[in-house]
Each structure stands twice: as C-alpha cells, then as structure tokens.
C-alpha cells in the first residue's frame, strides 16, 4: 500500500507547531548566546577547557575567538580539484557478491588558459579483489559493507584527489576540495578491531594525507573540506563551559552534573543553538572566523583538523583544513579566497564539489542497470543467476 498522506499530514502539522514554539525560544536564547560569545575571554576559556573533563566536543582556541577576517586577493590563475563518491553496497539478494564504488573527479583551471576535466571511475570489488579487510598476522578478517564501505569510499576519494594533484599544473595554486569533513566520523564509536582501524587510519586516510602533504612541498597546494549547512555545535560547546554558564571551576560534566536530567543542567540554555547561528551574526559577507582546533583524536598528527566558519554570502559554511594548512598563512588565505570564489561561481555551493557529485552520483536507474548487467553477464557464462525469494517477491509484486 502507498503512504497514507492524510494520516501523516496531521502528524506533521502537530510537529510543525511544536517546532514553531521551539524556534521562538531558540531566537530568544540566541541573543543571550551572542552576548556571551562576544564577552567571553578566550584565554580563560582555553585554560578551563584544558583542565576540564568535558562530556562533549570542545575545540581548542588558538588566539581569539570572535574576530572576523576579510577575504584577501583571489588568485586569477588557479586550479581547483574535487572528488566525490557514491557506492552500491554488498547485496545478498544479488547473484554476485560485490560492491561498487564510483568516484567522480573534477579538475577546473581558471585564469589565462581555462579548462576542465570531469570524469568518473567505477570500481567493482568482488571476492577476487577484496570484499574483506584481513589481518596479516592472523586469520581474522572484517567484511566490507555498510558504514565500513562508506569509510573506504572516503579514502578512495582522497586517493583520487592525489591523482588529480599529480596531473595538475604545479606552477599554479591548487585547492583540493572535499565535500563534507576531514574527520573520519564513521570510525568513531565503532568497535572495529585494531587491524581494521589501522587499515582505515594509518594505512588509509592518514596515508593519503601524508601523500598530499608531500606533494604540497613542491607546489602551492592546500586541502580543505567544505561543510554546507553545518550542524556543528563545537563553539557553542565552548560557551557551555564559560564561567557565566558553568559555575564550576573545572567543568567535569559527569561529576558535577551527571545526576541532573537533560534540560536542568546550567548549560542546557544553549541547547538548540548552532555554531552557524552565532557566526551568521558575526561575519560579514566574504569574511571568515578565527581558526579553532578540533579536539577529536584520530591520531592525525600534522593533519589534525582545524576549522573556521565562512560567510559565503549564501550561507555560513564550515571549512576544515589540516594543521599544516592552518599553520601556513598563505595556504590558509588561499582556502579562504578560493572556497569563497568557488561558492560564488557555483551559485552558493562550490562548483567543483557540485560537479564531482554529479559525476559520482548513482541513480536508482543506474543501480537497476548494474543489477541487470551482473545477471546478464553471469547468464552469458551459463552461471547460475539466483536471487532470494524475498527479492523475487519484491520484483513481482503479485496479488
């Protein structure tokens, strides 16, 4: 049966009324949050942060926290690179055990000799070339599917970016743009065994970061991740430990407030406020915020994630950069000006990321075609093309 829209419409209407009230409360809270933000002492907050045991993610303040920085000159000649991926997960109802990763890549040159290259590279993985991550020191292995496949896809995107950098003209500034975040969130909270974490981090994403860092020594190359409509609350979390909110000298959340219910803790007044709400009131069009260091610990080393917020004129975006970019004023300014330029050229969203996505995207039609192709090729070789009865039932939709 199809969805009963009449029944669901009433439920949506009820929720919308509650959201309206919450939004009213949030706007009231936002005003006091802004006063708090503007009056906060970065040095005091940083000392308290360093000495506390906080139950949420609070970034490190580097210098100030409420300054804004205008965009410096945008280079006329530059290259922007982006990669994005899409995948078809392992499907036990399919006649062949496999997954497919489609990596879309974009290289756009601006300036005197403009040009572009837009490609996609679908890679099929089967039992023959790896459906598992194996431990070289034991017989242990981990099947690649679900969230793990998503993480591997991110690593493949970074590998594609490395290739693009090697192809790009090294005499011109290069911005490598990633959609989303540099933090491998998928690995956090997952109890993957050590050999899997090593494959994903040390031999995976960190290895790609190392290669990019090496390439950056011979050309003006910066890596940045662009988060559109960020829902981060890390800066708001900083304010949660401000003495005006958190009365304790050391913010030890579990010890001080662990017994209090949600909503009755002193810092709960900040619930619902996002970082972008603050910076939309601080940053003028084209300006960036101060830089903050994420305290999430994935042993990234010199690639530790730093971030700032950018008012693109269309939205407040979050830009994540590795430490080696943040520490280089020239590269930092480049991420600022070029991310802004890309956003302007792309009607509010970086054109390179947008086109990489278009190259990578797998539509429902593509997925169906892929399934048919697998069945046709297996059939051509007289191999059994069997599927589950459940899948057949879904296809036939008999009455």
């Amino acid at each position, binding site marked *: 049966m199809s969805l009963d829209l009449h029944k669901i419409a009433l439920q949506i209407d009820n929720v919308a009324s509650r959201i309206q009230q919450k939004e009213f409360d949030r706007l009231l809270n936002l005003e006091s949050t802004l006063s708090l933000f503007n009056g906060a002492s970065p040095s005091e907050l940083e000392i308290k942060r360093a000495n506390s045991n906080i139950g949420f993610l609070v970034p490190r303040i580097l210098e100030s926290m409420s300054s804004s920085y205008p965009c410096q000159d945008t280079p006329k000649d530059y290259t922007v690179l982006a990669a994005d991926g899409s995948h078809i997960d392992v499907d036990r109802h399919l006649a062949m055990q496999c997954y497919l990763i489609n990596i879309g890549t*974009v290289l756009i*040159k601006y300036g005197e000799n403009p040009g*572009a290259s*837009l490609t996609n590279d679908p890679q099929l993985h089967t039992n023959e070339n790896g459906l598992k991550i194996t431990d070289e020191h034991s017989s242990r292995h981990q099947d690649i599917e679900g969230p793990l496949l998503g993480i591997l896809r991110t690593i493949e995107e970074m590998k594609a970016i490395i290739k693009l950098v090697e192809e790009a003209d090294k005499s011109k500034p290069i911005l490598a743009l990633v959609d989303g975040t540099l933090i491998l969130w998928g690995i956090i909270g997952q109890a993957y065994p050590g050999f899997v974490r090593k494959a994903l981090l040390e031999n995976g994403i960190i290895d790609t970061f190392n290669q990019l860092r090496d390439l950056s020594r011979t050309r003006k190359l910066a890596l940045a991740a662009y988060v559109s409509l960020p829902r981060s609350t890390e800066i708001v979390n900083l304010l949660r430990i401000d003495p005006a909110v958190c009365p304790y000298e050391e913010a030890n959340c579990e010890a001080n407030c662990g017994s209090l219910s949600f909503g009755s803790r002193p810092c709960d007044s900040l619930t619902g406020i996002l970082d972008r709400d603050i910076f939309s009131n601080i940053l003028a069009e084209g300006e960036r915020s101060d830089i903050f260091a994420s305290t999430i610990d994935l042993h990234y080393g010199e690639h530790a994630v730093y971030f700032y917020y950018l008012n693109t004129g269309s939205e407040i975006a979050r830009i994540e950069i590795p430490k080696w970019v943040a520490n280089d004023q020239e590269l930092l300014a480049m991420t600022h000006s070029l991310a802004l330029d890309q956003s302007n*050229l792309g*009607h509010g969203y970086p*054109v390179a990321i947008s*086109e990489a996505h*278009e190259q990578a995207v797998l539509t429902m039609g593509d997925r169906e075609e892929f399934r048919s192709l697998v069945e046709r090729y297996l059939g051509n070789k007289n191999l059994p093309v069997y599927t589950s009865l459940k899948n057949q039932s879904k296809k036939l939709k008999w009455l």
Partner: protein
Amino acid sequence: MENKDNRIGEVVEATTTSFISQCYKLYNSPHLGSLIKTGGPYPTYGIVYNIITQGIDPSRKPVVRGINSSSEEEVYRLNPQLEHLLRTDFYSVSIGYIQGDNIIYHLPPAPPPIYSFVQKCDGLDLINFSSRLEFIKILCSSGIPALDEVISAFIRNLADSQQDKENFLINVGKELIYAFPGDFRKMESILQKVLS
C-alpha cells in the same frame, strides 16, 4: 576518402530517413543547410536541418550565470566546466549515399551506424554531389521542419560552389517545379530566399 580535419562529430541516433550527430566541440555544428557525410558501410549524405545545444544531463537545466559578467565569453571563461556539461547536436535528413565511386540519390539501404564519423563536405564534394539534382525531390518530400529555409540555404551553398551559378539555379528551379507541382507561391518563396 575521409578528410580527418573535416571531422566534426559522430552519429548518436539514426533512422532510415535522418540521423542526429553530436559535435566534438560545443557550438561547432555545420550551419543550417550544410551538406555533411557520414562513415559506415553506406556513407550517407545528409543536409543539416536542425541544431540544438543543451545540457548533457537532461535533468539539469542551464541557469543564468552572466549577470555580473562583462561579456558572454567571460561566462564561459569563468565556468570552464560548461564545455563538458553542454552538447551541440545537429539533425540531418538523409538524401543519398556513396556506393563504390558513385553517388546514389536514394535513401541508404541502412542508416549510418551509431558512432559513425561525420564530416563537413568541402567544395569538391559539393560540386560532385550537385552534378545531378535528384536530391531535390527527396529533400522536398522529407517533411522536415522549416523546409523552405533548409532548401534555400542548401541551394545557396551549392550555388556558391558552381562555375556557372546562373545555369545551376535555372536547373534547380526546374527541379523545384517538379517537386512542388502547382505550388507557385512555395517555389517563389524558396527562390526569393535563395537569391536574397
């Protein structure tokens, strides 16, 4: 013999009577009424009757980009990816084919295969092709849109390559009388366009 320099695109859709070609370069289509030639087992002559430029992905509509640009060229310079996201196709009506050393003024036995190379015809091709005028009848009965405009543009192209232009146009006029018997106004309209 194919001249590689004249190659401008490939056939991407073909029927018994017409075919669509995609240009290698955006906007690099032969003009309306141009004579073109395909490869394949029955190299086919076609006349361009429609040119269309659009997004490669039909689900993505072009949007305005130049409000702050000083020129149309700047729009493309600032958006180099557009060359790869737009495509120019041209539609051609089939009016003959090559068999051995001869030009046959009938529809080809089979349409050109997909991905057949398409090339612009040079002056010598035009002279050879127009040595006989039977193509006029096929063209006039093809039912393509803006028929008068396409015929007149094609005849103008052919006339420019003739040594005796006046005699050529007289002969064309005679063929048009046969093609549109009793339809003096149509003939007049075509000839006026040819001579303008």
